[in-house]
C-alpha cells in the first residue's frame, strides 16, 4: 500500500538501502537517474536485469522498474524478474510510437505517466493500476508536475458539473472510454491512485504536490543528485506526511545541504522534452 508515501529512484543496492532507511515506501531500480539519461543522451532502455535483481534482494520494500513505452517484452522480462510494479515510462526512449503496452496481459501492476485526464484514462483503460504525473523528469523543476496535476484535477472537477447527457461529448473530447469518464464524474476522483513525479527536488515541492491533491510522490534525480541524500530523502518523506503543517515543514526543510541543480524548462530544446512521449 503506497498511498501517502515516497518512491525513490536508486541506481545501486546501497542507494536502495539508504532509501528504505529514510522511509521510502518503494524504490525504482534504474541504471541511470533521469538527470543522467538527459545529460548522456542516446537510447535509454530497460536496466540490466542483474542490477534490478541485486536491488530486489537488498530491500524489503517493493521494487519498481521501468520498461519503454510499448515494449511489452521488456515488461515480460521485468515480470519474470519478480519486480513489484512496472513503470511504462517516457523517461526511456519509446519503443512504439502508437501503442502502449496492453497491461491487461500482465499480472504485475503497472504505473504510467499522464499530463491530463484523457491520457490518464487511456492508460487506465489499457490496464494501468496506478498513475503519476509526467512532470519533466531529470530537471529538478517542479513546474511541469504542477501543470499536469492541476490539469488532471481541474478536468475532474469540470466533469462533476456536467449532466449525464454532456458526459458523452466529454468522453469524446477527452478521447477516453465513456464508462471511465462516467465513473470519474460520479466519484470525483480517478479510479486508481495518482502520484506526483518529475522535477520534485525539495520537501516543499513534495508538500506542494500533496496539497494539489496527489496520493504520493516519486522522487527521481532529486535525492541522489543532491548534496546530502540521506537527510534530503528523510525530509521529503516527512514532508509528504506533514504536507499541511507549515510550521513543521519549516523545521523539516532546514539545513538539507545543496539541492540538485535545476534546469529552466524553457531553455530545453523541444526534442529533449520527455513529457511529450506517449499518446
Amino acid at each position, binding site marked *: *500500500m503506497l*498511498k*501517502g*508515501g515516497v518512491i525513490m529512484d536508486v541506481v545501486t543496492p546501497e542507494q536502495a538501502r539508504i532509501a*528504505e532507511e529514510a522511509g521510502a515506501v518503494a524504490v525504482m531500480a534504474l541504471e541511470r537517474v533521469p538527470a543522467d539519461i538527459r545529460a548522456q543522451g542516446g537510447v535509454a532502455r530497460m536496466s540490466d536485469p542483474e542490477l534490478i535483481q541485486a536491488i530486489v534482494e537488498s530491500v*524489503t520494500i517493493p521494487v519498481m522498474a521501468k520498461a519503454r513505452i510499448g515494449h511489452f517484452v521488456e515488461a515480460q522480462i521485468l*515480470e519474470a524478474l519478480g519486480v*513489484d510494479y512496472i513503470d511504462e515510462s517516457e523517461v526511456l526512449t519509446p519503443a512504439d510510437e502508437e501503442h502502449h503496452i496492453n497491461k491487461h496481459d500482465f499480472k504485475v501492476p503497472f504505473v504510467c505517466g499522464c499530463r491530463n485526464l484523457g491520457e490518464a484514462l487511456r492508460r487506465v483503460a489499457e490496464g494501468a493500476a496506478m498513475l503519476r504525473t509526467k512532470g519533466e523528469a531529470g530537471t529538478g523543476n517542479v513546474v511541469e508536475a504542477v501543470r499536469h496535476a492541476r490539469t488532471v484535477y481541474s478536468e475532474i472537477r469540470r466533469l462533476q458539473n456536467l449532466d449525464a447527457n454532456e458526459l458523452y461529448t466529454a468522453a469524446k473530447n477527452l478521447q477516453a472510454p465513456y464508462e471511465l469518464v462516467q465513473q470519474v464524474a460520479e466519484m470525483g476522483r480517478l479510479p486508481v491512485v495518482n502520484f506526483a513525479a518529475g522535477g520534485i527536488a525539495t520537501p516543499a515541492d513534495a508538500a506542494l504536490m500533496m496539497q494539489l491533491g496527489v496520493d504520493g510522490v516519486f522522487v527521481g534525480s532529486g535525492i541522489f543528485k543532491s548534496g546530502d541524500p540521506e537527510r534530503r530523502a528523510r525530509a521529503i518523506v*516527512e514532508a509528504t506526511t506533514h504536507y499541511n*503543517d507549515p510550521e513543521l515543514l519549516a523545521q523539516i526543510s532546514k539545513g538539507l545541504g545543496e539541492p540538485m541543480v535545476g534546469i529552466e524548462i524553457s531553455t530545453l530544446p523541444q526534442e529533449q522534452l520527455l513529457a511529450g512521449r506517449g499518446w
Partner: protein
Amino acid sequence: MTAGILALQGDFCEHEAILQRLGVPTQQVRLPKHLDLVDRLIIPGGESTTIGKLLVRFDLLEPIRQRAGRDLAIWGTCAGAILMARTIIGGIDGQPRLGLMDMAVRRNAYGRQVDSFEAALPVAVFGQPPVHGVFIRAPIIESVGADVTVLAEVPGQQGVVAAQQGRHLATTFHPELTGDDRFHRYFLEL
C-alpha cells in the same frame, strides 16, 4: 467517542470514510497532540518500515504504547498488524514496532506484489457470510501467545490472518478496501 486513524502513510482515508459512514467522529493522528483527542486508534495498511520510522521521528511510539496500556483500543490492518506484533520476522534491522500483541508476524509472507490475492474468510464471531479478504503483499501471523484469540484463518492455509488480544486487534488484510464494515463495527465495540 472519537476514533483516531494514524495518518503517517497508507490508506488512512479509506478507514476514515468507513468510520464516517458509521457516524463516528474521526481524527487523523500525525503528532502526539492528536493522540490526546482520540479514544481508539486504527493503524492502516501501508509500508510498516515507513510508518514505524515516522512513529519514532514524530515521538508517537511511546505515547501510543502508554495509552495502549491504559485506555486506548488499537487495531492494526496489514502493515498495522506488523507494527502490533511483539516479534517481526523478515523485518529490517531495528525496525520500530508497537509490540502490543503477543504474536509473531512475518512480513511479505506470500511473496511479492504479484502474489497478492483475495479469499473468502470464515469469521466465527460474525457468522455468515464470510468476510472478503484482500491480501496485498500481506504479512501472516505465524504464531500467537496464550492471551491472543484467533479470529480468522485462510481456509486450507497455515497461519492466522485476524487475531485479538483484549482491546487490541490485528488483521493482515484490508477490510477498509471492501464494502464490508463488520470489522470496523467490531472494533468500535471493543
